[in-house]
């Protein structure tokens, strides 16, 4: 039995109405949507595997983002530049997210049935530990080489670190002009390549194991699958993808908000996935790609629409926060059934 999910249609209608009232040119909106697609696409894709493995929405993608940020701060501290710097960041981020992914996976195996709330708490806890290291540890226990990124009191890193040496390195490759819209073709292909790899993975033996565990933990164990190990693999994969996604995101922005850049990445990614028609029990790559486009279209036009309809830009702002939280709440309330 499969009911038709009306969420994507709702997003389409809302975006259309908001676009009409916002008076923004469709070309501008399209350009913005393309930018958001390459910024956030991989982060949303990172959520697909844990949902398939029956663990629900992985709010601990923030931990993957933190791994990326650690890599970036260290790269700036050591004065690394350009492509090699970016490779070093990726290597450090991947190593850290592998370790963190294993830890998160082990924790989630102990709290089976409450994975989603646990991943949220893990995200907050990791944020606290990360802030402690860079706000207090740097300048006391860790000696910085790059004095410029330190606060004037000598302890703690500045809130903003300039990523000038890495800004838009990947975005400038193969830029194509499609009418008034500029499309960084290389990055679009990168996001699509990640999507293809994940879609392919779901058809490999490992992917079949994810699906089997997702359909029933006990049933998978009776089939001889080490369900706990499969779940750890799902989370490791998700954390690694989140780390890569966040590297793409920050090099596009070009500035690192050291203490807050990772916050809410989980909320926006989850809302985007659900906007594409996924549920907390079923998600595939198509949901993720469609969801990023739909969610960010609405996100771009709603403040201006709020300004024009109610003469109050704040209302549009509140409305889009509501859309992000509300989409997740709706999905959680609607998908009754198992468990």
């Amino acid at each position, binding site marked *: 039995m499969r009911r038709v999910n009306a969420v994507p249609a709702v997003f389409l209608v809302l975006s259309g109405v908001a676009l009409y009232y916002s008076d923004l040119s469709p070309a501008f909106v399209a350009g913005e949507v393309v930018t958001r697609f390459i910024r956030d696409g991989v982060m949303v894709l990172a959520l697909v595997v844990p949902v398939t493995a029956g663990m629900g929405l992985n709010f601990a993608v923030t931990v993957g983002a933190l791994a990326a940020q650690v890599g970036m701060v260290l790269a700036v501290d050591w004065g690394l530049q350009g492509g090699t710097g970016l490779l070093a960041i990726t290597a450090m981020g991947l190593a850290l997210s592998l370790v963190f992914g294993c830890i998160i996976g082990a924790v989630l195996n102990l709290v089976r049935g409450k994975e989603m*709330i646990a991943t949220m*708490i893990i995200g907050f*806890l990791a944020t606290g530990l990360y802030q402690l290291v860079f*706000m207090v540890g740097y300048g006391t226990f860790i000696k910085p080489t790059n004095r410029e990124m330190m606060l004037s009191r000598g302890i703690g890193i500045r809130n903003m670190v300039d990523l000038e040496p890495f800004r838009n390195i990947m975005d400038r490759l193969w830029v194509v002009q499609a009418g008034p819209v500029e499309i960084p073709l290389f990055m679009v292909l990168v996001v699509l390549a990640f999507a293809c790899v994940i879609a392919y993975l779901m058809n490999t033996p490992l992917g079949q194991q994810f699906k089997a565990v997702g359909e029933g933990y006990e049933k998978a164990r009776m089939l001889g699958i080490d369900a706990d190990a499969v779940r750890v693999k799902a989370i490791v994969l998700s954390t690694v993808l989140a780390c890569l996604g966040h590297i793409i995101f920050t090099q596009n922005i070009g500035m690192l908000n050291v203490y807050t850049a990772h916050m809410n990445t989980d909320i926006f990614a989850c809302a985007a996935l659900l906007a594409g028609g996924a549920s907390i029990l079923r998600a595939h790559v198509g949901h993720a790609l469609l969801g990023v486009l739909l969610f960010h279209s609405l996100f771009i036009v709603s403040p201006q629409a709020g300004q024009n309809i109610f003469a109050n830009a*704040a*209302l549009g702002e*509140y409305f889009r926060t509501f859309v992000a939280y509300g989409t997740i709440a709706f999905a959680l309330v609607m998908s009754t059934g198992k468990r």
Partner: protein
Amino acid sequence: MKTPHLQIPQVFILGMLAVLMAMAFWAGIPLSGIMGDSLVRLVMNGVLVVSMIPMLNAGLGVNFGLPVGICAGLLGLCLAVNLRLTGLSGLFAAMAFSVPGGVLLGYLYGRLLHRVRGREEIAGTFVGFSFISVMNLFWAVAPFTNPSMLWPIGGKGLRPVIGLKGYFAKVLNHAWVVHLGDLAVPVGMLAFFAVLCLGLYAFFRTKTGAAVNAVGENEVFAGLSGVNVRRIRIAAVILSTVLAAWGICVYAQSYGFIELYSAPLMMAFPAASAIFLGGSLGHRTAVVQAVIGTFLFQTTYVISGPIANALLVPEVAEILRMILTNAIILYAMLYEGRRRRAQG
């Protein structure tokens, strides 16, 4: 009855308190001031913490949807300020005004949570988050008329922070303060909290209260013995929501300001942490456990601020609090998970 024994969080926090106390003593920070402050903060946050007990005992888990009740309380506070009510009667009027909203929201929230049994905590979290953004829209257009609540320019929409000075700021804090040497004991405030806690204790001795516990312990068995499980669960949610509304009233008068918009977004997490700290680890929670947990949690809060300032890194207090809050919640989840695994 299980014999009470210390869990890792309590051992950890007692150790941390001992270290902090020693540091405060060494830095010359007067301990009597800290004790007085932590008594005030016990009640300031305590009502929000005990508000979680009915839902915990009914088996709905931690009420991470605390903002739902908080918003009902904020509405009551705003009504009281709009009518320019002052003094203790103003505070009690605000609490009374928040009851109808609390009951209605609690009923709807309870029905919603009944749909998502087994996933109440994460669903509650996001119901709370999205309700805050709905209320953001409401605060921005609400037809209140008292100019001290509205944006000074334009005169439309509520301010994010409304000062209660001149209305009922700290009326409960200052009701009957007894000075024992250097230590100022807020007797009126403590008495108010004691009455509330005794009321909740008495509730769990009534037939309905016993039914709440029974549903929390074994839903199937409770249903078979004639308890209407759905009704009892919704009743527990309504009670928790109304208590949370009162909790924010007490909190706001103690703080001296009503904080609207996104301020209550994260308030559920420290409250959850305090309740676990008192020794409730996912099963039946006594009122006294919540009170002890809140006191320990708030004492670390009060004491860590001046010490962090003395160490020249003021942010460290906030960061440590965040780590402490979430580490305790995660520990409680792991403990509960291990217990369930052991039972098979």
